């Protein structure tokens, strides 16, 4: 796990994810969210979403992975709060960026933002709390 002494305010970390065509279906099976807006492109169009969209909690998992990979351990992540700003679609590339904004004791607060390859913000007003060694 990363040491708190290695971290300073302003440090950034980043994770890039490819959202494959079938990821929403794989996530439905694994995570249990079979809402048709995620697995049925026709249904997604019918309700004005323009097609099927990835489960928000899939994008949430990307943000979590960005924090865990940076910190070096799943035990480091203490809190993750996100707002789903716009939908993520199959074929999108999602880029999660974390930026250290505060350090208190061994706890780091990082602002989290995620954008897709079309420049749309998909996670906004998001924050992670990470505890290091």
């Amino acid at each position, binding site marked *: 796990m990363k040491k708190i002494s290695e971290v300073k305010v302003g440090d950034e970390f980043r994770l890039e994810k490819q959202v494959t065509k079938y990821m929403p279906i794989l996530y439905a099976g694994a995570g249990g969210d079979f809402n048709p807006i995620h697995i049925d492109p026709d249904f997604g169009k019918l309700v004005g979403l323009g097609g099927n*969209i990835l489960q928000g909690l899939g994008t949430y998992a990307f943000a*979590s992975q960005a924090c865990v990979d940076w910190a070096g351990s799943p035990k480091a992540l203490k809190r993750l709060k996100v707002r*789903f700003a716009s939908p993520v679609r199959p074929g999108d590339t999602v880029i999660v960026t974390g930026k250290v904004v505060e350090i208190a004791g061994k706890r780091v607060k990082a602002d989290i933002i995620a954008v897709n390859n079309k420049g749309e913000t998909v996670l906004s007003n998001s924050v992670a709390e990470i505890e290091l060694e």
Partner: protein
Amino acid sequence: MIDPKFIGKKYVASDSYDICRTKIKEYAMSVGDANPLYIDRKKAEASEFKRVVAPPTFAVVYGGELAGRLLLDPELKLNLPMLVHGEQDIEFFEVVGVGDEITSTGQIVEIYQKKNLDFISMAVECKNQQGKLVARSKFTFVIRGAK
């Protein structure tokens, strides 16, 4: 508008969620996370955790039954086709892994309308077989086209 009288309504999971290695792997692979602690039994058992552990966000799987119950609660009459996930907030207290048995309880904590959007939030507390709090979540859903 969702009737705010439902704020405070409680939900209890029908049974414990028993964490198993294969489900963790399925979940991790579905979001493209190949951390060996989640998918490689030998490496995970050789780690400080001594077992395969779940990614933090697996909390939405073991606590997810209650979110499903909320959405399908006939009393609430939620317009599901117009519903999307608005916000997610989880505090993680313990790393959860193979063999843990998680019991979850939930409660509706917010119902409000903003412009043409309805909001409903549920808080979920998840405890392990020792009664220790492992995760506290808040799921917020948004329903478009509110009247």
